[in-house]
Structure formats: C-alpha cells, structure tokens
C-alpha cells in the first residue's frame, strides 16, 4: 500500500486530505509544520509527498528543493498544493521539479485522481 506524507499548516486541510486518501486505501502521514516535514519524510520514506507552499518558517518550495537535492529522496514525486494562483507562481513551482501543481481551493476528488495517476505512472 502506497504511503503518502501531507505537509500543511492548516489543520482542516490536513484532515480533509487525510480522510480522502485513507478512504481510497492509502497510508497517510500528516505533518502540520514545515520544520519537521523533512525529518518525517526521511523516516517515513513515502511514495508521494503533498506540500503546501505558503507556510511559516520554511516554504513548501524550500522543502521541495531540499528533497530534490537529497539523493535518497529525490525520486519521491511531489504534489504542490497552494493558494498562489498566478501563472508565474506555477512556472516557478514546476521549475523545482514538482510533479503536479494544484491551486487552492481544490477538489479532494481531483487531488486523489492526480495522486493515483502519478503513482500508477511509477508502477505503484
């Protein structure tokens, strides 16, 4: 069963995504602050990470950059979840090697579909 780590500072968003993914049968780990995000990802070794962009202390982009530069973790696909809705924001995000860029507000169903698609393309 694929394992997914979700990082977001808004508890209700964590809850919502967790519910949706768990119902679809995924194993889910939620992280509600950016500082412990990297540590959790290292220990959990998930198959996919869902990241919020705008968080205090460390932005989702920073976490993504750290992931991509870590040999052991760089293969993990990242879905960026953000309220930054402008086109150049999306370009910036994709330039960091983000797999999908989903803007808030979002449909949990669409998010789930994206997750399944990414994992399927990687044979999981």
């Amino acid at each position: 069963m694929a394992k997914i780590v979700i990082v977001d500072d808004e508890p209700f968003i964590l809850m919502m995504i967790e519910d949706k993914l768990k119902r679809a049968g995924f194993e889910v780990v939620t992280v509600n602050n950016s500082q412990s995000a990297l540590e959790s990802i290292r220990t959990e070794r998930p198959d996919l990470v869902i990241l919020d962009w705008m968080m205090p202390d460390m932005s989702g982009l920073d976490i993504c950059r750290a992931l991509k530069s870590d040999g052991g973790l760089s293969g993990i696909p990242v879905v960026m979840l953000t309220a930054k809705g402008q086109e150049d924001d999306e370009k910036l995000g994709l330039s960091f090697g983000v797999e999908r860029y989903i803007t808030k507000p979002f449909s949990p169903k669409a998010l789930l579909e994206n997750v399944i698609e990414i994992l399927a393309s990687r044979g999981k």
Partner: protein
Amino acid sequence: MRKTLIYNFFILLLAFALAMIVPLYFLIDRTSAGIIHELGKVAPLSFEQRLVFTKLIQNVKDNLISMSFYTFVIAFMISLFFGRRLLKPLKELYAAATSIKEGNFEIQVDVSGESELKDVSSAFNGMARALKEKTEELVWKDRYVSMMMDPLWVIGNDDRIIDINPAFTKLFGYERDDVIGYLVYELMDEENEKVMRKQLQFREDGMTSTYELQVISKRGELIPVLITGAPIYNEKNELAGKIGIMKDFRKETALRRALNQANDYQRAIMDSMPDMLVVIDRGFNIQMANKAAQEAADGDFAGMQCYQLFYSRQDNCNTAGGKECPVANVFATGKPHKSVHEHIENGRQVSREVIAFPIKDEAGYVNNVVAIARDVTEKKVFEVEIAQKNKELITLLGISKSLNQSLRSEEIFGGVLEKLVEMTGMDGGSIFFLDEMGRELSCKYHKGLSADFMKESGPFRIGEDVPGRAAATGQTFTTSDLSNDPRAEKSVFRHTGIRACAAFPITGKEKTTGVFVIFSFNPHVFSLEEERILNSVGEMAGMALENIRLYERMRMLFQHQRWRKTEEQKQLLQVASVLTTKLDLKEMLNTALMIVKNTIRADFVWFLEPDQRNNLVLKSAPEGGVPEDTVVYDAGDNSIEGYALEKKEPVIISELQIESDFQISSHLAERKFKTACAIPVYSGDKALAVVSFYCSTFKQPKEEDIFFLQTIASILDVAIERARLYEKTILDKGMSETILESIEDGIITVDPEGGVISMNRTAGELAGLAPSSAIGSKCTELFGGSEENARLNILLLKDLERCMKGEQTQHNITITSGKGMKVPVLLNGFPVKNKDGSSMGVVFAFRNNSRQEEVNRLKSDFIRSISHEFRTPLSAIVGMSEMLLEEQMEKEKEEVYLSTILSEGQRLSDMVSDLLDLATIESGKEILRIKDLDMAGMLSEIKEEFQAPLHKKGASLELRINGQLPAFSGDAEKLKRMLRNIIDNSLTYSNPGCRVEITAAGKNSHIELVIKDNGWGIPPDELNHIGEKFYRARNASNIKGTGLGLSLSKEIIRMHNGKIQIDSKNPGGTTVRLQFPSRRAKR
C-alpha cells in the same frame, strides 16, 4: 715576415746564380773537351799540350767556383738590400692596416719613392680616407638614429621588423628583442593592418608618404602615430627595406577628435537651427550651409550665391551701393552687421533679417562671412504692429493727459498738436477754431510755419482751402503731395513748400468745432491707420473742447464738484498708467475696471467679449462673483451690451425695471439694478468688447462719465491688442526652454567620452547637483556613494559604448539619489546622431519609476494576498462540501466538517468586512462609539485572547502597567482590533519562542502603549511604507496576510487623535509606540 721576405729573395737570387753557374761549368767542361777533340783531329795533341789544356780548363773551372761564391755573396747582399727596401713600405702599410683595423682612421702611409709601392700606398691612403669618411657617416647616422626623439622602425621586405630605435621603445614599451624579426602587423589591429599593407605597397613602388596609424603598445594601449615612411635602397639600387619615422600623435588625435566633435556639435547645432545659416566667401558664393539653408536651396547650394538663397534674386544686391548688404559690410568693416531685407518671395512679402559675422584668419583678414538669415516677416509685422500700437497708445495717453490735466484750451491743443506732429513724423501743423457763427476758421495755434504767413493767410471760410474743406465736409482730408493735388490747386499752402498734408475736423457732439492741420515738407502717404488715429484725436479733442466748456459752466454752477473732477482725472491717469505698465491682460482689465467702478460709483462693472458665434463671454468682472469665460448672453439675446455693440455707441438705460425690452443676464437678475450703461470697444470696424456698468439706484449718467468711459474703452482697445501681441511673443520665446526644464524625466546629455554637456533640472535634483556644476564632469561621477550607483555607473559606461554604436538602451534599475533615497528608474539611452548617422553624443533619460513601481507592486501584492487569503478558507468550504456530498461520512466527522465550513466561512466574511471597514473609515463615513474605557482591563482581555496562538508558537506575552493610567475613552471594539492586529503582527513575523512585551504608562495627559517584540524586524528601506494599504514587506511575502491590518490600525489610531511610531531593526525586532490623548466621553 721580415725574414721570410729576405730569405725568399736570397734563395731566389741563389737559385738564379746556381742556375747560371752550373750550366756554365758544364758548358766549359764540355766545350773544352770538344776543343781538345777538334784539335786532336787537326793535329794530334801532345801529352804536354793536352796537360796544359786540361790545366787551363781546370783553372777556369776553379775560378768559376770562386766566382760562384762571389755570386753567392753578391746575391745575399742584393737580396738584403732589396728586401729591406721593399719591407719598409710594407711595414708601414701593415701598421696602417692594423691601425685602421683598430679603428684609427687618422693614419697616412708615406708615399715617397718611385716604385709601384707608391701607387699601392696612395691607393691605400685613398681607401683609408674613404673608409674614414664612410665610418664617420655611419657613426653619425647611428648616433642620430639612437638620439632621435621620434621613434622609428625599419621593416624588411618580408614585412618583418628589422630595427627600432630607443624612442620606439620609449613610446611603445617594446624592447628590441620583443619586436625584431616579428611581422609588423602583429603590432596593430585589422583596420590598421590594412593601412599598413597599403603603405608598404607604396614603398615597394618607391613612394614616400606620410600617414596615420594606431600601434598597439606593449601595455595594450592603442597609440596613434603619424608616420613618414620611405623606402631604403641598397647600393645596387634594390629595395632593401622600409623605414618609418613616427610622431607621437596622441595629443593631436585627441585635439583633432575634439575639433571634429566640436565640428559635429556645431554642425548639429547649426542644423537644428530653423534659420538659414551659410558661410559665404568674398565672391558671395555659398561655401557651407546648414540643413535649413540646404532645404531652402532644394538640397544643392553648390554654385549658389547668397542673394539667390536669401532674397531669391539673380543679381548681386551689393552692386547698388551695397550699403544694406550685410555681407559686403562685414567684408569691408570686419564687424558683425545686421539688416532686414524685404523682398517678394512666391508672391508674398517676406522680411528676412540677415546677421553676418566675420570669420577672420590669423592676420585679421576676413576670408569668409557667416550669415544667418531669419524669416522675420511675422515678427516684423508684430513689431510694426506693436510699435504702432505703442506709439498710438503713448500719443493717446499724452493727448488724454493734456485733455484732462489742463483746462485751458490753447494749452491743451498746443500740446495735442505737438504730440500729433511728433507721432506722425510731420514737420508742423496748425489748429483752427470755427467762430460762433460757424462761418470762419481762424488759426489759434501753429507750428512750423511763420507767424507772418499765418497772419496774412487770415481766417478761412468754410469750404475754402484745405482747412475749410475739412470743416465743411466733416471728413479728414489727406494728400500725399499738395503740390500735385488737383483738389488743392488754389491752396495758399502751396507756396510754403508743404507737400504731405492732412486736415481733420475737431468734432464734438455731431458738430464741427475746428480743424487740425498737420503737414510735412516731404511727400508722405497717410495710412488708414494714421487717418483713424487722426480722426479719433479729432473726436477726442472735440469732446474735450465741449467737456471744457461744459466743465467751465459746471464749475460756475457747482463749485463743490471740483473735487470730484480732479479725483476723476486722477483715476483716469491711474488707468492710463496701469495700462502702460501692465501686460497681463486679466490683471490689466481687472485694475482698469475697478478704477472705472470706483470712479463712476457703479455697483457692478463687467467687461464682455463677443466670441466667434457672437455670444457675449465674460472676460473680467471685479468683485462680481461670476467666473471668467462664462457665456452671459447668447448671440440671439437682446441684451443692452449686444445693442451697444450693434449700435457702436454707448447705450444708457436709466430706468432698467421699466424699460424691460432688454434681457438681463441671469447673473444680474437677482440684484435688481436700476441703471445700466454699456460702452462698446471697437478697433476699426471690429467689435472687440463691451464695458458696462450697473447701479442699484436710478441714475442719469453724466456725459463726462460716458466720455470718460469711452476714453478708457479706446485706451483699453489698444492696450488689449498690445497685451495679446506681447503674450504671444513671450509664449513663443519661452516655449522651448520651458519644455526641457519642465520635463519630468531627468535628462543628461553626454559627449562620446561621457563628459556631461547638459543636464536639466530634474536630473539635477536626482543627482543632488546644480545642473550647471555638472557640466564638464563625467556622467559616471554624478551619482556615487552607494552600491546601486556603482552599478549605475558601470551601466552608464556600457550604455555609452552601445549608444555610440547607434543602439538604444533601456534598463529598469534602482539608483541612490542625491538625498540618499533609493529611487527606481527607467534608464533610457539614446544616441545623438549627426548627419552621417554616426553618434556624436548620448542622451540619458532617467524616468522616476518609484510611484509607478510601488503602485504596481502594491496592486499585484494586493491581488495575490487577497486571493491567497480567500483561497485558504475557500479550500475548506469547497473541499469539505464536496466530501460531504460524495462520501459516506460518519456522523461525528460530518459535524467536524460542517463546523469547519462554518468557521472558515466566518473567516472569509471577517476578511471581507476588514476590507469594507477600511474602505468605510477611509471614506470618512465610519463613526466611533466612544465610551469611557479601562485601558488596563482591555489589555488584560487581549492578553487572554492570545493564549492559544502564543502557546502554539511557544511565545510569551508580557503585560506591564506602570502606575495609574489616566482616564481614557474611545471605541473599545476598534481599539481592541487595532491592538490585536499589532500583537498578531509581532507573533506572525517572528521565530517560534519569541517574546512580546506590552507596556502601558501615563505620560502627562497621554496614555502611551509600547508593544515591543524580538521578531524579524522590518528592512529599513521598507519602514516608510509599512502601514500603507496592502503594503507587505519583502521578507513577509511567504506569510499569509492581506496587508490591511496595519492600515486599518493606523486609521483607528488616527480616529482617536492618537499617534503611532514604528522603530525597527532588521534583524532585532520592532517597537510600536502608541500615544493617545487622555479624555473623557461627553455625557
């Protein structure tokens, strides 16, 4: 050497001797044997005989040996003698050769003796002399070459450098080893290589030439040199190489570049002139012409003469005396000359002002003349008009002064006549008054003619001669030449030599009271304008005459009126002086009307002008309260003013309410005026304006009032014209200077080296320099003292280079202004091109972008933050609703979801109301709900509210109340919101575990609150912007926020008459200091 020669001689001689003696010996031996044999044949020889014979031969043989010895000795002696003789000159030659070899060319070999050795010696001497000369020459050459100040190189036939001199090393830094053997082209770039190759080809062809070249020095500099190159031939007259002697041309090149540049600038300046500018030689041929002149000559001025270009004439205007020819004048006098030339061009009268300046050579001889031709047709018309109007005005003023200052008619008219004569440039004149019966004109005053003549000619009857004629017809009589005028055949004035003459009636109220005559002894054509003036003077004089009579009567009757009259006169003079000094039309009108109003004692005066559609437009109304340029009467309205204009005469309505035929403007209707008077202002037939006054009382305006107004109106007429002309001229002149100075962009013009040529006011302000002080310095030295400006200066250098290649540049950069402010600017660089398309300078335009950039950033920041702030709660609402609809949720979960949707919906709505609140407060519609407040209690409440977020962040909040706080009242809700915002900011823009301190204290009659944190702080350059709506500091861009909180807080503080001061260190934390005046709510 010596021995060898002697031995050789000796051996030679010895060998010679032996060669002689040995055969002799054998010959004797053989011959003797033969003789014995022959003798034996003849007669057998006896033994004795044979013995004697043999003895004899033996004796001969023995003697031969001794002779051999003797020969031996002789040979030795001879060889010694000759050897010595030969050896001496040889020795000398040897010594001399050795000496020459050692470099001593002074030696001479003794050439005494007769042998061939003498020839050898003298040949040797010749050789030594030649050698000496050649060597000396070589030494000198060598010395000269190495002493030469000018660098040189010698180049072989393979284009490689063979030799250089020390000056070459000095100039270029290359030592001999650096260059000798190398291709000469290695010392230059491609362009110069081409020149060099061509020059070397010239040498191959045996030519000598001088050329310029840029050689790359060892230090990598391009050094310009002037080279004189010549071929070098060997003795066989074959080309052995090429020599080039150089002159350091750096200074000259710089000088020439400066000259060229000056020329280019001059050219550009010349071409930018709208006036024609040409250089003319002594044959009046155009040598050079600027763009304007070239255009006028249809591009080709070659072979054109100046008069063809300037005056469209084919013959030299100088042939007719040349007084007015400015060019000829300058050639003759060597001084600048200016003249105005009038001619017909394309059927149009054109006035061209030609200013000519000499171009002198060193000896002071004028070779050429620069002539600038400016079309002054329009200006001239203006000038003529202005001069005319001024003249008119002055005369009229003088006349009106005379008319009003004096009450003695002769004095008045004498003065008027003199002024008239002066104004028209006449030689004299006379005034005739009609007698009471209206039959005879008698002379009262005359000037320029003898009293006897006037006496004799006696009074003229009506209709008789020139004065009588004018009096009879009531019309002005003018003639350009009396002696040729059939109308004046019998005139007595013909005998006086009078040529031009004008007679005009003095008319009062429709009645002629006298005649003015002015004349000149030269012919003169009176212009319509002059006639008009003469007419009006006649009318004014007539009025004045009547006025005087009236006044005298009045004085008799009303003594007390005297005061008023003088006052009125004073006022009139005041108007006159106002009109002559003021050029501002509005001010002039206003002043004049005020005086009119006060003098007439009217309640209201205005000055109306008909516009193109004949609507009457208000131009001036002192204290009237009606705005200028208001249309007060439409074209069709039946107004008093319109009627006066139509009638061309003053209209007086003394009972306005009763005579209601006229429409009264809505601006005046309420004021219920009872009397109105309108005086039209005419210029010829053209209705210029109408002045009218209104009184609240019934009033019959006196005639002198009307006259006074008419006088003012006629003065106003010329004054208005004059003022308009001046306004136009001043406008034209100031336009171009004003444009550059008024441009909001900073403009700096630089030369190709980056030297500042000009700088406008804005650029000066930006750099913090006086524009004049910047001229001449480098453009990279104008801005300094910061990293931004260092970048700017690098950019300016690059742009300068690019622009000089003809490109245009543009950058968005930030610079530090002279006041130390960071200013974002759009920097544009444009090349200034001269005619051949190359750049001769660069214009840098600095557009201050700060406002635009800030507004843009704020706008997009706002959109971003607002959309972001809205997106997060919307995520809950949209996402969770979808979950609720699509999934089968447990009851408990369902509740959590629904309550989250509710609270996030609430958050969204809060945000919207925040925005709305701010908008309301800013629009000034928000009202405070003021109540007495317990500040300390309120602060504690807020502290409680923050417990949850504080805990989450691991932060601490400390509240300190120092002493008893003064009484305070305010809107509790708003104040709480403000404090929450500030504390929230402290917590948001800081690291976990931060500390916030709130201190409240009473200070005099104020409450002071200090909120201090140890958070991230605000970057110093952004501190000024904090609190501006939607402004968010750059280091906060990843944090959620609308940028509204502090703006809202600031507004709330302002509403409470409070003050806010924010100090911040980045990093180090922020201190917000709030001060509120202590107060009590009103009960």
